[in-house]
C-alpha cells in the first residue's frame, strides 16, 4: 500500500538513523563552517556587510565576459563529450566483449592525471613536434606542422572530452543497461531503423541519463581550472581561474568571495536540476544482460568505438609512457631509477615509494571515509519523505563547485582552535579529498538504493533478519555495484587531487601529484623525465588499484 512505504524497515532500524546525520555534521564542520568564515571575513571585514565587491563583479564587462566564456566552453565541452560518449555507452550497455570491464576501469584513468601531465601527454601526441605532426609532415612533405592547436579553444575542448568521457560513459551506459529492449523491438517492427531508431526511441528513453551526464560534465567543465590555465593559456579565463587569481596573486578577497558565491549559486541551481533528474533515472532493474556481438556489423560498431576510446583516451597516455622511457640517447629507464636517488641530499626529498605510499594511504583513507559518509548520506537522501531531502541532495554536491583556494583559506582561519586545530594535521588532506570524493559516492550509491524495492528489506526482516543483518545481506550486495563505482571515483579523485593538497600538504608527506609538480618546477631534463616517470607510476598505481577494487566486489561484498 502506498502509505506503508514510509515506515520501511520498521522500528528496528531506528537506532541507526542517528548515523545518517554524520555526513551532515561532516559537511557542516569541514565545508560550510570554513566557507562561511572566509566569506564573512571577505565580505564583512569589520563586521559590517560590504557588498560593493558584488557591484564590481556584476557591473564589470570583464567579469561578464569571463562568465560568458566559462559558460560557452562548458556547453561546447558537454555537447562534444556526449556526442562521443553516446555510441560508446551503447556498446558498453549492449555488448559483451573481451576486455570490456578492464576498458571501462581504464577509461577512468584519465580522471586521475594532473593537468600538467595531460598537457605534456597531448603535446607529445599532437604538439608541434608531436608524433602525429611529425608523421604528417613527413608523409605530405609539409613545411610546417599541419595541426596547430596550442592555446586554442579546440585543445581545451579535446582535453575536457578526454577527462569527462568516462563520466558520461558510466552514467549513460549504466542507465542504458537497465532499460528494457522491448521498446526498441517494437520500434523495429514498426519499421524504424538507423537514425530514426536513435532519434525517436533511444534518445528519448535515455533522456534522463543523458541530461544527468550533461549536467555533471557541465559542472566539471564550468569549474575547470588547470586545463584552462595550462592548455588554454592566459587568453582564456574561467570563473575558477579568476577566483584563484584574485585570491592568491591580488589578495582581493572580497572579489574572490563574490565570484565564488556567484559560482556556487549557479552550480547549486544546476545540481538541483541534476539531482532531480537522477531521481528519474532510478528505475528498478530490468535485468537486461549484455550479449556478444552477433554479426560483422555489430562487431564493426564495437570495434569502431573501442578505437575511438583508444585514440581519445589511451593514445595520450601511451605517449606519456613513451616519453618517460625516452632519454637523450633513445630508450632508457634512468628516469625511473633517478626517482629514488637524492643527489642533492635534500631534506625534503621523498623517494617515489614513499610518495606512492603517501598517496595510497591518503587515497585509501579518503575512499573509506567517502564510502562510509557517502553511503550514509545516500541513505539519508533515499528517505524520500520530505521536501528537505530534495534540497539536501544538491547540497552534498556543493564541494564540487567550490574552488580549492577559497576553501583552503577558509580552513586556515576556521580550523585554528582545538579540538579542530587541523591546519597542520595530516588528516586535513583526506578530509579535503573526502569532501570532493563524497559526491561521487552519493551519486553512484543513491540510484542503487532507490532501486531496491521496499518489500525486499521487509521480507528479509520478516524472515528473521535483524536491521544489521538486512543491511549486510540485502542492502550491501544490492548497492555493491554502486559502491564500487563510487569507491573507484573516490580513490581516483584522491590520487589525482592537487589543488587542495598543495595548500595543506606537509612537505614530509607529499602525494604523487605534488612530486610531479615539484619536479616540473625545476629546469633540467632529468627533472622533466622524472615527472613523466612519476606520472606513469601514478597511472600504474591507479590501474592496479582499479583491478583490486573491482576484485573486492566480485570476491567480497556482492554476488551480483
Amino acid at each position, binding site marked *: 500500500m502506498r502509505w506503508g512505504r514510509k515506515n520501511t524497515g520498521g522500528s528496528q532500524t531506528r537506532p541507526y538513523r542517528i548515523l545518517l546525520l554524520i555526513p551532515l555534521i561532516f559537511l557542516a564542520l569541514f565545508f560550510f563552517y570554513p566557507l562561511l568564515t572566509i566569506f564573512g571575513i571577505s565580505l564583512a571585514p569589520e563586521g559590517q556587510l560590504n557588498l560593493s565587491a558584488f557591484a564590481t563583479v556584476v557591473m564589470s564587462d570583464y567579469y561578464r565576459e569571463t562568465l560568458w566564456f566559462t559558460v560557452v566552453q562548458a556547453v561546447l565541452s558537454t555537447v562534444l563529450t556526449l556526442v562521443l560518449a553516446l555510441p560508446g555507452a551503447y556498446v558498453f550497455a549492449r555488448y559483451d566483449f573481451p576486455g570490456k570491464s578492464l576498458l571501462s576501469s581504464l577509461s577512468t584513468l584519465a580522471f586521475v592525471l594532473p593537468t600538467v601531465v595531460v598537457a605534456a601527454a597531448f603535446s607529445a601526441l599532437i604538439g608541434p613536434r608531436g608524433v602525429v605532426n611529425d608523421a604528417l609532415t613527413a608523409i605530405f612533405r609539409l613545411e610546417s606542422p599541419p595541426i596547430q592547436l596550442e592555446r586554442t579553444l579546440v585543445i581545451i575542448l579535446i582535453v575536457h572530452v578526454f577527462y569527462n568521457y568516462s563520466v558520461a560513459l558510466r552514467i549513460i551506459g549504466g542507465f542504458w543497461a537497465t532499460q528494457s529492449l522491448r521498446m526498441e523491438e517494437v520500434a523495429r517492427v514498426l519499421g524504424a531503423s538507423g537514425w530514426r531508431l536513435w532519434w525517436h526511441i533511444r534518445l528519448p528513453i535515455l533522456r534522463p541519463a543523458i541530461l544527468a551526464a550533461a549536467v555533471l560534465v557541465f559542472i566539471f567543465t564550468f569549474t575547470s581550472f588547470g586545463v584552462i590555465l595550462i592548455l588554454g593559456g592566459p587568453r582564456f579565463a574561467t570563473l575558477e581561474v579568476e577566483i584563484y587569481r584574485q585570491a592568491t596573486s591580488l589578495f582581493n578577497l572580497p572579489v574572490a568571495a563574490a565570484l565564488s558565491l556567484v559560482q556556487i549559486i549557479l552550480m547549486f541551481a544546476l545540481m538541483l536540476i541534476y539531482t532531480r533528474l537522477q531521481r528519474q533515472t532510478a528505475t528498478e532493474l530490468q535485468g537486461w544482460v549484455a550479449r556478444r556481438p552477433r554479426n560483422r556489423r555489430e562487431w564493426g560498431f564495437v570495434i569502431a568505438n573501442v578505437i575511438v576510446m583508444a585514440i581519445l583516451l589511451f593514445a595520450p597516455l601511451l605517449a606519456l609512457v613513451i616519453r618517460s622511457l625516452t632519454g637523450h640517447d633513445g630508450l632508457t629507464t634512468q628516469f625511473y631509477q633517478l626517482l629514488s636517488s637524492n643527489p642533492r641530499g635534500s631534506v625534503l626529498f621523498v623517494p617515489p615509494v614513499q610518495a606512492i605510499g603517501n598517496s595510497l594511504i591518503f587515497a585509501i583513507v579518503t575512499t573509506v571515509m567517502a564510502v562510509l559518509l557517502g553511503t550514509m548520506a545516500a541513505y539519508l537522501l533515499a528517505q524520500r519523505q520530505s521536501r528537505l531531502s530534495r534540497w539536501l541532495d544538491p547540497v552534498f554536491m556543493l564541494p564540487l563547485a567550490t574552488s580549492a583556494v577559497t576553501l583552503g583559506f577558509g580552513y586556515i582561519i576556521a580550523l585554528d582552535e582545538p579540538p579542530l586545530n587541523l591546519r597542520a594535521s595530516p*588528516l586535513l588532506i583526506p578530509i579535503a579529498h573526502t569532501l570532493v570524493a563524497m559526491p561521487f559516492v552519493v551519486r553512484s550509491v543513491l540510484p542503487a538504493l532507490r532501486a531496491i524495492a521496499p518489500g525486499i528489506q521487509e521480507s528479509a526482516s520478516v524472515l528473521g533478519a535483524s536491521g544489521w543483518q538486512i543491511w549486510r545481506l540485502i542492502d550491501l550486495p544490492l548497492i555493491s555495484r554502486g559502491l564500487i563505482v563510487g569507491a573507484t571515483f573516490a580513490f581516483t579523485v584522491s590520487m589525482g587531487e592537487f589543488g587542495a593538497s598543495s595548500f595543506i600538504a606537509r612537505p614530509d608527506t607529499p602525494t604523487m601529484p605534488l612530486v610531479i609538480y615539484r619536479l616540473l618546477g625545476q629546469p633540467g*631534463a632529468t627533472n622533466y623525465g622524472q615527472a613523466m616517470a612519476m606520472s606513469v607510476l601514478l597511472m600504474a598505481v591507479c590501474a592496479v588499484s582499479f583491478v583490486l577494487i573491482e576484485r573486492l566486489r566480485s570476491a567480497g561484498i556482492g554476488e551480483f
Partner: protein
Amino acid sequence: MSIYTTPTAIQRGGFYLGSSPWDVHILGGEDMLRRMAILAILLLMIAPVLAQDNVLTLVTHDSFNVSEDVLAQFQDETGITVQILRSGDAGTMLNQSILSKENPLGDVMFGVDNTFLSRALDNDLFVPYESPLLENVPDEFKLDPENRVTPIDFGDVCLNYDVSYFEENSLALPESLEELTDPTYKSLLVVENPATSSPGLAFLLATIQSFGTEGDTTYLNYWADLVDNDVLVVDDWSTAYYAEFSGSSGSEGTRPLVVSYASSPPVEVYFMEAPPESAPTGSIVADDMCFRQIEFAGVLANAQNPEAAQKFIDFMLDVPFQEDVPLQMFVYPVNTEAAIPEIFTEYSAIPEKSVTVDPAKIDANREEWIQAWTETVLR
C-alpha cells in the same frame, strides 16, 4: 506460543553465518573495512606525536628546500626540532599567513620576496629581529630598516636563450629590452603571465622600471610592440620552460628565448642526463634586463616559539645554509662569506645592474599594472 526465535537462536544464527560458504565472503568484506578503519585511526594517532617540546614550525612556499645534513646540524646544535609547512606558492603562503596572523601556523616564515614585501609588512605579519650575521649582508638587500624581515637569498629573473639556436642561425643576443621588439627576434620570445606567475611579474616590473608608467611612451607601448613582434604569453613557468622554450633538454618547444632565472642554465646542466660539453642554455645578464628578487625570512608575530625562530634566522644567514642555497633553491646567498658552487660561476653570472622597484610601489600598483597589461597584451 509459537514465536520461536529466542536469543539463543539468534546467537546460533550468528555462529551459523560464519560457517556457511555463502557468508564467508561477506565477513571477508567486513574484515577489509575493519582493516581500513584501523588504518584511519592509526593516521589520527600520528598527529599528536609531532607535538614535541622544543619544536619550531617553519612556514614556507613549495620551492623551499635544504640539505638534510645542514638542517640536522641546526637540530643537533640547538636541540630544536624543525617542522616544515609548505603552503602553496609564495602568494598563497603569504595570504594564508595574513589570514591566520592572530593564531599563526608557525613561528618563522621564509619566502616572502620583494614583490610581496609591502603586503607582509603592512599587515604586521612580523616582529623585528636584528640578526648579528646581518653585518655580512650588503645593504642593498636590507629593504626593511626596522629589520622585521631578514634577507636570505636573491635571484635574478633574466632571459634564457637556446645556445644552439643562436649559433646555428648566427644570431646576436639581444642586449637590451628594446631590442626584443626588433623584427630580428620576431616570434622568438615566450614570457609568463604576470597575473599567475612570479617570474612573469618580475619581468613585467623590469619593463615598468625601464619604460615608465607616465608620459607618451610607457611600458604598455613597449608591450604592444612586443605583441606585434609575436611574443608568446603562457600562464606559468613550467609551461614556458618545458613546453615552449626550445633550449630545455628534450623540449618540443619552438621559442629560443624565455623569461626564466639567471641560475637556470647551471641548473639545467646540473640535471642533465650526462655531463655536456657545453651548456645548452645561457642567461642574458646585460644591464637593466633582469629583475632582482630578494627572499626574506621573518619571525611571525604571535609565534609560539620566538626564540627558536630567531635562532633559525641566524642559521639561515650562516654560511652552511647560505652555501646550501644555490643547489637546493637555485638562488644566490646574500651572505658575502658564502662560497658559490663552481657550476654556478661556470655557467652563469650575477647581473651587474639589475632592475629593482620599491616594494611599496609594487604593492600599491600591482593590480592596476597587471590589469592594464592584460588589456594591452591579452585582449
